[in-house]
């Protein structure tokens, strides 16, 4: 068993002054990197005139947030976009888990013959350019009256997240001690109960991290939402775009809309950062 090194007080072969210097450098780099985000949050509290000229003469307020929350009639409103996003993201993620959990089981815990080929097949579908399959999807969605519905987005978001979910879940399942599963098998526990009683409690945090990554990719997805669901049935990225106006100043409102649209996923991502990346990297390297 390899002992994990979780960041020592002093790096190997370094002096204390070096460490302090590195700490300061890290702070400077991080503040520079985050600057565009911080600036956008700052702009979202300005008036439109101040935002357009990048000045600050009229003070800060929450006014732009209430502006964007009250949509112009006939355009995509925040409530509609938010509800569409919420339903599409939650339903698609739930179905991804329902499909991916048994699949990961068959790839990790009771590996089928040639499991590696199957895993590669799943991953390889991510290499297929989306544009290569968008016309048939578009043509058939039109034929079956699915353009502009939540259903078509749910169906597609399951497909884009499923390979990633299987890949991550497999790696978390590999960490479940085999003895526990074998013991459950000798007791005659069926697959469903094995999953429920033995695997889920142990791989639970990993499953949560997998679900979160699916949520992030689905929440942020723009291409399918633009192509197949452009109008009033669309999701949050489309709503942000509606705040770009060709007439008049819009920068402060756009900033407020951006903050609203990104906040749920950013908070979730902050909460689960460590586990998420472990799942991604352990999928190949364990």
């Amino acid at each position, binding site marked *: 068993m390899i*002992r994990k090194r979780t960041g020592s007080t002093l790096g190997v072969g370094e002096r204390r002054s070096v460490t302090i210097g590195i*700490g300061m450098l890290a702070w400077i780099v991080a503040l520079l990197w985050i600057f565009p985000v911080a600036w956008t949050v700052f702009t979202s509290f300005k008036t439109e005139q101040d935002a357009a000229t990048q000045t600050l003469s009229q003070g800060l307020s929450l006014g732009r947030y209430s502006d964007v929350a009250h949509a112009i009639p006939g355009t995509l409103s925040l409530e509609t976009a938010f509800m569409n996003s919420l339903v599409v993201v939650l339903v698609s993620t739930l179905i991804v888990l329902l499909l991916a959990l048994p699949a990961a089981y068959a790839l990790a815990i009771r*590996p089928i013959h040639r499991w590696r080929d199957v895993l590669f097949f799943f991953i390889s579908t991510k290499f297929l350019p989306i544009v290569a399959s968008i016309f048939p999807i578009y043509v058939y969605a039109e034929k079956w009256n699915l353009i502009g519905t939540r259903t078509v987005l749910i169906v597609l978001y399951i497909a884009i997240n499923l390979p990633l979910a299987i890949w991550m879940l497999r790696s978390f399942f590999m960490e479940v001690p085999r003895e526990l599963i074998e013991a459950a098998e000798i007791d005659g526990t069926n697959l469903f109960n094995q999953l429920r009683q033995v695997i889920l409690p142990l791989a639970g945090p990993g499953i949560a991290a997998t679900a979160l990554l699916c949520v992030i990719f689905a929440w942020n997805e723009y291409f399918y939402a633009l192509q197949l669901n452009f109008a009033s049935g669309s999701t949050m990225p489309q709503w942000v775009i509606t705040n*770009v106006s060709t007439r008049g100043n819009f920068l402060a409102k756009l900033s407020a809309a951006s903050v609203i649209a990104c906040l749920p*996923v950013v908070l979730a991502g902050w909460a689960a950062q460590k586990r998420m*990346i472990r799942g991604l990297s352990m999928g190949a390297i364990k």
Partner: protein
Amino acid sequence: MTAAAADAALPRGRAKDPFSSPWRRRLPLLPALLYVIAITQLPFVVSIYYSFTNLKDKTQSLIPEPTKFVGIDNYKQIFSDPFFRDAMWTSVKMTVLAVVLSLLFGTLFAVLLDRKFIGQGVIRTLLITPFLLMPVVAALIWKQQMFSSLFGVLNKALNFVGLNSVQFISDHPLASIVTVLVWQWTPFMMLIMLAGLQSQPGDVLEAASVDGANALGIFRQLTLPHLRRYLELGALLGSIYIVQAFDAIDVMTGGGPGSTNVPYYVYEESIGGGFRYGSASAYAIVVVVFSIVIATFALRVLSSLFRDEERA
């Protein structure tokens, strides 16, 4: 654990063993497999069929013409289309630049963060934020706030130090888009590299240190070889997503010379305004063939990662 070893671990001779037949074992896999085939592979097969026809969107053309087979005409057209060649070249430049730069920055940041200092957790949290943003929002932030020609923050800073303003997006479209991609993907690479750094066996590093190796020597001799597979993984996952970049292009330039990559070009030719599904499908198929070539390389890399896992 290999499949063969798993077979050996099966309790034998039990009449009610639920995994006695191979098909019972494959059963949990089937729903996911069938779903992925139906949604990602079947449309692709239909695309191949379209690529041999002159299919157009009936509602979009003034004089509707019946769809008919045109053989390989669409494919012949590709190689005489200078715009497609430009788009291919843009795709290559965009993907390679964005992947290499974000890997480079990500590794540097990970090395910085791989130590305990005041606010380490806060810094990591701040740094991953750009990756969590909607790509659309990231592109809008840079376009409207940073790159904007008159009041953009970058031009204000340039003017402040006495330099002339730069028309970032119109004069340097590719560099502008790559900047946004690198800004978003560096945190992702950083997290992967951080996982790599922290999985190094600490005792080996300490032993090297006791033996009198300096920090740079340790990094070159021990850390870099250990990080190789993490670099490969980062490059692989990054290219999967970056090669398909669409959102940043759509928001920042809406195509145009120097910034139209292949996905955006195919989009423009079809549902983005051209509505020539037949010829656009042929473009898409060519892209897939190129992707398969690249993916074969990438999967070989992955394959070596999995082999190592088995040996361990």
